[in-house]
């Protein structure tokens, strides 16, 4: 096998590893879960009155950890595992579903337990849901544009 052909075989193997859909959606899941958990922790931290200092430190540490996971996931999705148009539609669907469930959970917590923490988390979850709906709409629009252009090109071909 000549050097070019051997190199191509390696490139195809490399692409197989680079294009793992599971890895991409895994980062989407990590982003969503870390965002939700961080929201809950921050809501509790800022709304619970007279927390002991040890608890405040613990909440602070948990918030930093949550934000770090969010940053890691966002960085990976931007640099290491960018989402393609079809992946974005899937990720948008995941985000809407997850945020919807999170909103329902926060509504339940607000009804059952009440309190500022539940309402704070509910407000944040609604913002997350709206952002997810916006992201899904944008992903679908972009996907439709690309599909339309592909059809035009395939027709010409």
């Amino acid at each position: 096998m000549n050097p070019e052909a051997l190199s191509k075989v390696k490139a195809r193997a490399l692409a197989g590893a680079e294009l793992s859909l599971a890895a991409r959606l895994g980062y989407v899941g990590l982003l969503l879960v870390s965002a939700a958990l961080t929201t809950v922790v921050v809501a509790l931290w800022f709304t619970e009155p007279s927390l002991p200092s040890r608890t405040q430190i613990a909440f602070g540490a948990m918030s930093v950890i949550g934000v770090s996971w969010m940053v890691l996931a966002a960085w990976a999705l931007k640099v290491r595992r960018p989402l393609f148009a079809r992946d974005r539609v899937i990720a948008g669907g995941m985000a809407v579903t997850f945020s919807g469930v999170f909103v329902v959970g926060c509504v339940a917590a607000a009804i059952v337990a009440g309190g500022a923490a539940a309402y704070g988390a509910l407000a944040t979850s609604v913002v997350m849901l709206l952002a997810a709906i916006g992201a899904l709409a944008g992903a679908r629009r972009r996907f439709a544009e690309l599909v339309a252009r592909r059809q035009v090109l395939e027709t010409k071909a």
Partner: protein
Amino acid sequence: MLAKGTHLTGTSLFLCRREPFSRRHDSLFVSTPILNDDSRADELLAIRCQLGERAAFADLIDRWHEPLWRYLRRLADSNQTADDLVQDTWVRVLRGIAGLRDATRLRPWLFGIARRNAMDRLRAQYTRPTDGDAALENLAAPEVDASLEADLAALESGLETLPARERETLALFYLRELSIDQIATLLEVPPGTIKSRLFRARQLLRDQLATKGAST
């Protein structure tokens, strides 16, 4: 100045753009016409990749791996280095193609990544501060095949003896079918510089071939 499609020497060699996906050796100039279908095929391929069709990436590699490898081989000093560079290039391409705004620019975009990748490697390899063109000069010592028997071999050998900047410009223009403006963007120099490099490259190549012809 030689125009595209004119004879370089009295031989049967032509200096015209080649069909880019020919299976023939990269260094051969083949007088086939430019096909608009290629541009359309490139755009379609880019869009399929942006959509996330996994099969499209295999097609992209099938279509462009060898031209990229050969292009990088001209910038590198060994097959192994070219291999490393092309693998790095593919990683960048796979990670970046979702953000390619204009799918019609797939070809210059690919070669731009390959070139930047090669420049990055060279800067790391040569610790002294240098710009891309100067670094290129240090690469790939000219080799002359003493046993030239065929015109194509003479042409290839002549190409190898060109200075790196002229060789690269000539390869991008004729072998890769990039326009002068595209090459200027890729190499970050004015279009006029590209024209002068092409002019100089053609003259050097012609002189090389004439010298070879006289000596044999």
